[in-house]
């Protein structure tokens, strides 16, 4: 699962992982390792994607038609499976980011209340 590093507040929900994967692929096709790295770096090392959750998530998204996969050469010229957003995937990412923005704002309001 997706875990927040160094806390024990538990796993984030699965839908969030899928949203992050979609977001990671917004910049263009990536292979699985790069997706995990990007999320780790971008979250300031706060989020760590476990491999055991990442690949099932990628395959699930591919199966549902949100991603499509192509085999290509990686940076050091090895065969790698690159994932890419489909039109459907882009739409889903849009909807998810809006939903997330609303949700996090709402949670923030509640938590900031005195």
């Amino acid at each position: 699962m997706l875990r927040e590093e160094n806390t024990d507040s538990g796993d984030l929900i699965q839908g969030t992982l899928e949203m992050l994967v979609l977001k990671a692929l917004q910049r263009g096709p990536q292979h699985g390792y790069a997706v995990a790295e990007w999320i780790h770096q971008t979250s300031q090392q706060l989020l760590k994607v476990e491999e055991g959750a990442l690949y099932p998530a990628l395959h699930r998204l591919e199966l549902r038609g949100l991603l499509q996969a192509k085999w290509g050469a990686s940076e050091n010229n090895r065969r790698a499976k690159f994932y890419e957003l489909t039109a459907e995937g882009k739409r889903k990412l849009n909807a998810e980011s809006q939903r997330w923005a609303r949700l996090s704002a709402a949670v923030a309001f509640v938590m900031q209340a005195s």
Partner: protein
Amino acid sequence: MAPVLHEFLGRLKSLFHKRSMDREMVEELELHQSLLREKLLRQGVPPSQVDRTVQRTFGRTERWHERLRELWQFRGIENLARDIRFSFRLLRKSPGFTAVAILTLALGVGANTSVFSLINALLFRPLAVPHADQLAVLGYGQGGSDPQYDFSTPYFRSLESRRNLFANVFAYVGDTMQVKSSAANENVPGQLVSGEFFTALETPPLLGRYLTPEDDQRGGSPTGFAVVISESFWNTWFQRTPDVIGRKLIIANVPFTVVGVMPQKFVGADPTQRPEIFAPLSADPIIDAPHNHIDDGLHAWWINVVARLNPGDTIEHANAALLAVSNPILEETADTPEALLDKEHFRFTAESGSRGFTYARFIFRKPLIAMFAMCIGILVLACINLASLLMARSAARERELAARLAIGATRMRLVQQLLVESALIAVLGTLAGLAAVPFINHALATLQISDHNGNDHVQLNASPDLRLFAFTALIAVVTTMLIGLLPALQATSGDLNQQIKGGQHTAKPRGAGKLLPRVLMSFEVALALVLVVGAGLLAPSLVRLFRSGLGFDPQHLVNISFRMDKQPLTDDALMRVYQQIGEDLSHQPGVESSSFEFIVPVSGLGWNGRYLTPGSKPQILMMNAVGPQYFQTMRIPMFQGREFTWSDTKASGMKMILNQSAAKLLYPGRNPIGMQVIDGHDKTAYEVVAVVGDTKYRDLRRPAPPAAYVPLMQGNEEKPSFSAVVRVHGPQAPLAAAARALAARYAPTIPAPLMTPVDDVIANSLFAERMMAWLSVFFAGCALLVTAIGLYGTLAYSTARRTSEIGIRMALGAQRAGVVRLVFRENAVVAIIGCAAGLVTAVLASRALASFLYETSPHDPWILIGSIGALTVIASAASLLPAIRAARIEPITAIRCE
């Protein structure tokens, strides 16, 4: 594309690219691992620890694969495939059980499908014409009672002339036509049809045109008489020549012009007839000469009437419209005041005619439904039997199932596997049953289905259609559910731990778990008893019918019918021909004696008249005209007097022979020989010359009526057709050839005479009874066998599970006889409860059979006792075997097994 659909397609694809997908997953994960390894090295982790760290974050690769693969799988389907393979292995391991299961099911399914295909053909299948749902069968009656369907010509023509009632209305009647071939006349089945017959049935002709109202005129259309022929007649008679249109056919010595050919699938409005020639109704006086049903007016009730409703019209509306015209038609057709007697309640009726009209439906509906009930009974029996056996077997597998539950299988999965197992049996059984259907149907087809009116053979189109497939599918599904669900649920319920601890060898208290199989077996015994009682009632009744004093001896007796109505000779000249034929027949090898008769006994045909003695009131006597040596040939006892001779002509004075009942009726307590009997109609006086024994007349099921015989030489008809009766020993085929040769010599223009053994006439008239009796005996035998297998099988399984218990009992001093009793008692209880329940059901259900029984009470105590006896013997035999085997258990080995 919708995600669900995408998912489905993806999984479908993965089914076929399993290998390459597996390879890709491995590659993808390997890349990730090596990138991770490089990163760790860059971060300065010592190489010796890198592999361990990677391993820790990654876990075991096999589990990874499994998880990813699962994502791409149809989990249901692949589990199913596994279950099927597993079930196959299990079934192969116990071939005896599998064979019994499949055979009993095949029997049930085969019987049901066959009888249903008959029911479907006769009762459900719509006519093969366009828009059959708009057809209506017309009848008439006195309101409440069942309508009559045989119309007279005036009724029909009056309906036909009211153009606004229906789109079309037509009449038809089946008729045998004498068609002249190069050699002689031949009998060809045909139909007389009214003008709008073809218009209403909307089937275009294959060639030429069909008959129209212009053809249906007295004397034919201006161009002469026209006929339409069937495709098969076109094939056999005209070798499919395309210039058949315009050719002449000589029917009843009159030329008819062929104007059209109808396609094979068209059979008219009666689905059980296969007419080869359609002729106009108005040609009846020619084709049926010397009879004339048209001029007979209200005295000939001879045609059936069907209508096509106006577009958008309903049966209710048609009935209302018919009610309005009923009385006007009655008034305009009435020729005597009596015809108007019941005017107030008289009305014409319409009912749905999408399936056409046939009298066979009235005759065969009840026997077919009774047979169907028997078939359902045998199928339910087979299912219950299998359910019980499976339940007993899965009880023996408790430990295996418990172990599987314990290592994580869900109850759902186990139920699914057990269901698959029973579904496999059900499917194999159904397939085997379906494979047998063509053979059963073939056997049914060779049975001559005849209606009670004699020679018309009922033709049924029993070819499979959608309805039959739906029925079979339904049977397969219901069978699977019945067989599988109960044992599966039963086997996987209950306390797991206890089952594992207890295992196979522990004696368990009798609880609710043991109740269900016993209830099922009792039900099975009850059902078997009902079937056996049914057979016990029907079979002796049939034997009684065959043996019941016919009054004559049907063995070695044949009828040869001669149709003389269309040949040129008349009166005395014709009689001389009959005499010649009779004499030559009696000199054929093996012939003991021969004679002639007008009415063939028990063929369904009859003729009666009112006769009186001077100074008394008239009595109804059944009549027959017979030749010399008739009573000797038929072996009808002659109590007094003499046979007719060829010299008993009109000129020598009218003679008559009475049977015993008629003699008692007309001359009670007196000797009738030499006395007079007077025809109540034309006052002719007859002299009684003999008294003979009573015989069955029209119907085998009825007692012999008072009857009188007159010499055939004294008849009034110009060209009477008689049947020769011949008592012949040895092969009958040469006699048929001889009869054809004789007919060709003395009356070259008549159709080849038809020879029928009298045994066949009797068997034909008892078709329904015979069929039911045979089937019921067969099914009862099967029921007994299946029940025996079930009782044996369940007891054998449950006894096997009690091996160690019995061993302990014996070690503690139980006698072998005691062990036999112990085991035997289990089934005895089941059998007794089943018999009691079955007896009650049988007594209630046998009332439905009453109308098929002849001189047999549906509650005959001997039959009930006998049936229970048969079942008891079978059940005891089936239970004794496991009991004796249990008694042979060696206590030491049994206990050591633990």
